[in-house]
């Protein structure tokens, strides 16, 4: 998937058993690469895939507030019944961004 990812996060939608996990490569506070794993319906897999494309170059801080609507736009829209696909991807990315930031803050070399 990714060797030594800088951030890993999961989003889950229990009602549908959808699960998305993101691995991020971060440089200077920005995402340079994102990979996903997904278990779930087609739209969820598509949303996760589209999400990895839109986060290239994004700052971790921006990702913390990433709206589901942006993921949905990236995948070209979703029917009402499948909106959760974008939410699951959003939650996963936010979690990965939080994880990446927390690692930075606890690095023993003192860099913020």
């Amino acid at each position, binding site marked *: 998937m990714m060797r030594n990812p800088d951030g890993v996060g999961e989003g889950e939608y229990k009602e549908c058993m959808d699960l998305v996990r993101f691995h991020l490569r971060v440089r200077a506070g920005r995402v340079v690469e994102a990979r996903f794993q*997904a278990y779930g*319906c*087609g739209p969820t897999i598509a949303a996760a895939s589209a999400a990895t494309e839109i986060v290239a170059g994004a700052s971790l801080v921006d990702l913390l507030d990433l709206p589901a609507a942006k993921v949905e736009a990236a995948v070209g829209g979703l029917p009402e019944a499948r909106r959760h696909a974008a939410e699951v991807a959003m939650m996963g990315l936010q979690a990965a961004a939080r994880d990446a930031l927390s690692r930075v803050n606890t690095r023993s070399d003192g860099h913020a």
Partner: protein
Amino acid sequence: MNRQVYLDHNASTPVHPEVVEAMLPYFGERFGNPSSVHGFGRAAREGLETAREQVAHFLRVGKEEIVFTSGGTESDNMAVKGVAMARRSGHVITTKIEHHAVLRAVQNLETMGFGATYLDVDSFGMVDPDALRRAIRPDTILISVMHANSEIGTIQPARELGAIAREHGIPFHMDAVQTFGKVPIDLDAFNIDMLSFSGHKIYGPKGVAGLYIRKGTKMVSVQHGGEHERRRRAGTENVTGIVGLGKAVEIRGRDMAEEGRRLTGLRERLWEGLQRRVPEVRLNGHPTQRVPGTCNVSFRHVESESIVLGLDLKGIGVSAGSACTSGNVEPSYVLVAMGVPLDWAMGAVRHSLGRSTTAEDIDYVIDATEPLVAKLRSAMPARA
């Protein structure tokens, strides 16, 4: 351009060219209303009654015991509600794996004060005749058990169930939409009082079906209006559709046995190939007591919709055993009733073979499925 392989014959079938040919005159010169007295009407009436004879001959019953309807759903509703309304109250026995047309009709009766028992099925989806016997009450007025379920194809022990119904003098309805024209049905040996069957499952047109009603069965009409179908089902007959249905049935009489053998061989080829090439698969349904063309396979830890979509991209049409329609996971209620664990039920894919299916088609499907499932599984986060 992909090869096109249709493996969803339990959902619908293409109309047989001979059926189309038989129907055509009834769009044109023989367009009259069969109830009309004049020659135009009589020409249509002739087609209607010929079709009725074809169906009656196939089932070895009297013409007057065949009523034409608009679909399997209507036939099921007519059987269930028709018998129930004639009695005004009572108890109905059916199963947990019936088609929604029966399930919801029975649930509807419950809201009107009728009692209902929904029999369990075993891990193969089979009803236990003793369970039926135990469920019978003094006020039981109807037993409705489908001959075979559309998702898994398991064929019920109709003979034993019918015998129990007859023993207690209770009308026995069998939804045979998935078996009529595919496996032999002996109405007398099975003690069947009402039988639902549908056109578009047997290479006939959609929108037309029938209900066999044994002479003497007490029921009332649920669709009122004119005198059609001996006052059992009002409404100008769908002549073109009925003519098509009759022809389709006649063709089935000719082809059924041979097709059954051929499809059984092909479905075994499919199951054998999938087992060999794809890890963690299981068959849903009885291994041998099954409608010839049905092969429902679960792929563990993979979501069935993803497989259906992936196969669709390769020109293959199959159907999923689970639905994620409103953001809620819903594995098939049939698989749930069979006790299939969730991580298997979520990955159920139904392949239903038919007239057009060839060995090459089967091999193409296996070749497409193996890498697809492998890819979906590799993209999955490891689950505890």
